[in-house]
């Protein structure tokens, strides 16, 4: 055990849904301020793991502990995967961030300069000032994402959970948001656990990686985890970790041969956008 209390400890967490095992003995730990990618393909159990950390899904066995020994509460910020905010709600982006601050309190909010400043500062931090006064349901997917990140962060949580926050973003916004989250996690000392199916945009920023396949996980530093032996053992069959043009691709064995051949034939085609 580390000397500093971990921001999040997941120990041998198992979840079954509809009689099917979705998570099997997932274990890892996050230190305060750490930036961690939760990587896995569609259906690997990323959303389920995040919801289990939030306490929305009950564990069948194992344990999940937050820094203060509690489960979900004021110290966890969350941005869900499916965010299509209702255009019929009379809420501005600003109001959504304010609801992140004290939305669980009873009674209407009294006007307060401090509150307004905190909201303003957060809007600025995520670069949402330009659309702060527009109806939130009418914003684009990426804009809503930024507003929700602000909503989650404004309470200064010790742990921030983001489910596929990069899925709606263009290449430039992806880099921007990753850099932003990285910076905010440092500034606020919040551990960030961010799910994605593609690890590449996160590679420069990640302190740790939790790699999920069929509900099992390995965790560690990216260079320790993203290796042919480690991932082959996780998947239970041989996969190759292929590096092409600065991108990491995990592929099943035959597919990896095809990729090598393709790269040899036509390097530009498989090379990704930088």
């Amino acid at each position, binding site marked *: 055990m580390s000397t500093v209390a971990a921001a999040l400890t997941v120990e041998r967490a198992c979840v079954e849904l*509809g*009689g*099917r095992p979705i998570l099997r003995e997932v274990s890892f730990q996050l230190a305060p301020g750490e930036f961690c990618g939760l990587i896995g393909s569609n259906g690997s159990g990323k959303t389920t793991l995040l919801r289990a950390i939030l306490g929305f899904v009950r564990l069948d066995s194992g344990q999940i502990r937050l820094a203060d020994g509690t489960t979900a509460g004021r110290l966890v910020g969350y941005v869900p995967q499916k965010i299509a905010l*209702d*255009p*019929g709600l009379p809420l501005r982006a600003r109001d959504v961030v304010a609801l992140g601050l004290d939305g669980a309190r009873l009674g209407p909010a009294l006007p307060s300069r401090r509150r307004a400043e905190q909201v303003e500062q957060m809007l600025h931090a995520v670069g949402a000032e330009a659309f702060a006064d527009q109806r939130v349901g009418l914003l684009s997917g990426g804009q809503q994402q930024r507003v929700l990140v602000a909503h989650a962060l404004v309470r200064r949580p010790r742990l921030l959970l983001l489910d596929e926050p990069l899925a709606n973003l263009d290449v430039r916004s992806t880099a921007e948001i990753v850099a932003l989250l990285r910076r905010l996690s440092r500034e606020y000392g919040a551990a960030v656990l961010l799910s994605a199916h593609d690890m590449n945009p996160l590679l420069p920023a990640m302190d740790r990686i939790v790699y999920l396949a069929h509900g099992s996980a390995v965790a560690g530093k990216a260079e320790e985890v993203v290796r042919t032996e480690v991932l082959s053992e996780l998947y239970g069959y041989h996969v190759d970790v292929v590096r092409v043009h600065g991108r990491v691709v995990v592929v099943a064995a035959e597919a990896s041969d095809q990729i090598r051949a393709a790269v040899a034939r036509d390097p530009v085609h498989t090379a990704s956008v930088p």
Partner: protein
Amino acid sequence: MFAPFMVHAWLLATIVALVSGAIGFFVVARRAAFPAHALPLGAFPGAAAASLLGVNQLLGLAVFCALGVLVISQLQRGERREVASALWLALSLAAGVLLLSLSGVYAQSINGLLFGQVLGVSREQVVSVAVLSVGALGVLALFARPLLLDSLSGELAAAALGRTGRLEWIFLAMLALTTVIAVPVVGALLVFTLMVGPASAARAFTNRPWRALAGSVALSVASVWGAIALAYLTNWPVGLFVGLLGAACYVSGRLRSAGAVAQAG
């Protein structure tokens, strides 16, 4: 209960149940429980007006149904579709209240219109309802697949078929036609139970759409028969049993899907 004078009632009720069960499948798929309630109830003042004026009730029903389709489809364009149904219902019932209070009549026949009336059915009524039903079922059969696709995702249907506004129109029109057929029998307040209850149960028992449709029709017919028999035996209003049997269908569906999730895998 099977006396000769009841034959027409049984026939009519069966036809009504067939059509309600079929349209009910689409009501559930398209999440249109509220319109399915608002159209029949909103048409009731039409029938009331017709009986005050001494014209055919079906005509009054039809006119108000058409108005309802028009108003609902226009108002639905806002962000809250369900508001359209609520406003139409309020508007039409307000007109009904005005009619009743100006004429100063509260006839027992209106109670029948609200809560259903299966006795005293004439042969002509059976024939006209049968003709209308065949029409409704034909249109539904014709548009079954586009309607289903549109229920799954309006955007998918729009991509595949071009404009889908017309599908909503067709759906509402068929809902209106079913209303005209069913209101005099089951009553304006309870027609939609016959659509929602059986259809919501049927989809819990199968993943295949057309089987669910068939199941919906079968359950609907069973509900109507059961309701008439119980009403005959107890002498209580038939609407009570239509409502209760619809709820029973729904509960069985809920129980079944809860069980199915637990067993899956």
